[in-house]
């Protein structure tokens, strides 16, 4: 930006006021439910192994340590608090993801993340609905399985279709040479992004759950019928993805295997391997209580509250003006 008005905020004062009200609503919601507000580092020693997330490296030199990462999510630190026995916790924090910019993305954004001990994915979905519906004054969400959503809008069964069928379906968006080397999950992500998401939650908010086990990330998995599914859910309103939640994996060895698998995938794709967070793994070893957790994008929640079509409308200074 080099225009004379580039110093000015991108958000109208209405958006700034609504953001403040939203924050106070969130704090009131959790105070009433006796969930403790915490703060964890934005700048951590480790990044994240997830191949589809790019962290932003920091050039820190302090306390005899060099380098660090702006956190893509407060998850590892919050789980260390959970393992230490702090009970139910929530946090409002800034997270950072390199390369993500657009109508629904800003490389830095506000996240609300919370963990509830003794909850599973279903009970946490209910609490997410309580919070979101009460703030947006909207209908209670329906629940739809990932498989059903893909069948309905992408006209493909994500669990049983062949690779050839999947590639043929993706041909609507990509050239055959672009599909070479794309995994099943990459293809499913394409279909989810272009065929399914725009149709989700148009009449009524909808939870998508029972993701393929290969997309579990940090969720525990189980068998539903003959398919391995992840206890993971996302909430969609007006085609906008609002949150991602898990009935959390508590098995430290399985966590190690997933980190290693992430790094193998990174190397196969020509991405640098990421150091696994040993402090987090040690916390898992010592025992993460049975819990469910969810991360919710507060900027997007505000977009829905205000009917904004671009995230820039709700950020005081979107990245182009930062």
């Amino acid at each position, binding site marked *: 930006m080099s225009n004379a008005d580039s110093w000015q905020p991108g958000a109208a004062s209405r958006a700034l006021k609504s953001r403040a009200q939203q924050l106070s609503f969130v704090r009131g919601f959790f105070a009433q439910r006796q969930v403790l507000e915490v703060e964890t580092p934005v700048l951590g020693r480790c990044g994240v192994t997830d191949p*589809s997330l790019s962290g932003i490296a920091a050039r820190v030199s302090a306390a005899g340590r060099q380098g660090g990462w702006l956190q893509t999510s407060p998850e590892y630190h919050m789980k260390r608090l959970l393992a230490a026995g702090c009970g139910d916790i929530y946090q409002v924090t800034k997270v950072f993801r390199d390369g993500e910019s657009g109508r629904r*993305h800003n490389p830095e954004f506000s996240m609300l993340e919370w963990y509830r001990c003794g909850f599973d994915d279903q009970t946490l979905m209910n609490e997410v609905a309580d919070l979101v519906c009460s703030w947006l004054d909207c209908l209670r969400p329906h629940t739809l399985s990932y498989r059903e959503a893909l069948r309905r809008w992408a006209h493909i069964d994500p669990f049983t279709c062949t690779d050839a069928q999947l590639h043929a379906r993706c041909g609507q*968006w990509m050239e055959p040479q672009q599909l070479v080397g794309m995994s099943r*999950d*990459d293809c499913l992500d*394409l279909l*989810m992004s272009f065929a399914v*998401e725009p149709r989700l939650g148009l009449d009524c908010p909808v939870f998508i759950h029972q993701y393929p086990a290969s997309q579990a990330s940090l969720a525990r998995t189980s068998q539903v019928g003959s398919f391995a599914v992840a206890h993971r859910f996302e909430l969609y309103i007006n085609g906008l993805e609002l949150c991602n939640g898990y009935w959390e994996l508590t098995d430290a060895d399985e966590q190690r295997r997933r980190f290693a698998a992430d790094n193998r995938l990174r190397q196969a794709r020509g991405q640098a391997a990421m150091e696994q967070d040993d402090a987090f793994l040690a916390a898992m070893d010592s025992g993460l209580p049975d819990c469910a957790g969810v991360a919710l994008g507060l900027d997007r929640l505000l977009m829905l509250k205000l009917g904004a079509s671009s995230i820039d409308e709700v950020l005081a200074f979107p990245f182009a003006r930062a």
Partner: protein
Amino acid sequence: MASYSTNEFRGGLKVLFEGDPCIILENEFVKPGKGQGFSRVRLRNLMTNRVWDRTFKSNESLEGADVMDQDMEYLYTDGQFWHFMLTDGSFEQYAADGKAVGDTLKWLKEQNVYTVTLFNGAPLTITPPNFVELEVVETDPGMKGDTAQGGSKPATLSTGAVVSVPLFITIGEVLKVDTRTGEYMNRVKS
């Protein structure tokens, strides 16, 4: 030329796509909750003006296109090529073929300055200035007293362009015309 990855895409960036120079009009980043991100890109092919929508995986890249706009004076045509000269004092000349000149042909007048888009050093397209001043070479006789309102008639200009003009315009007058719409603006005092 440098190559650009999807997170460097932005409106106005000129890239090579399927061998043709294209300009990026829009780039929308899309990503499901977890997993692979994609860029939905709208490109205009600078050769054909066709608009394409294409999807790229995050971190796919496109080669930059060596495309630049230069101000040049139109000199003459030899029947096969139209010759232009840089206005930067270098007197360097470029020959544009009929494809590059395209519809701009009807606005080409010697000594006028045009925007010549060069691709790999050769004229790709010729864009006229928004307004040109051209002489009327043919039109029906003017009608006296009809200076303010009512009717219009066709007039042929020195370049061959035909524009709709008020009835009072006569042969030999110089008119200002908007090249974007082909509309008559006003008479120019000569």
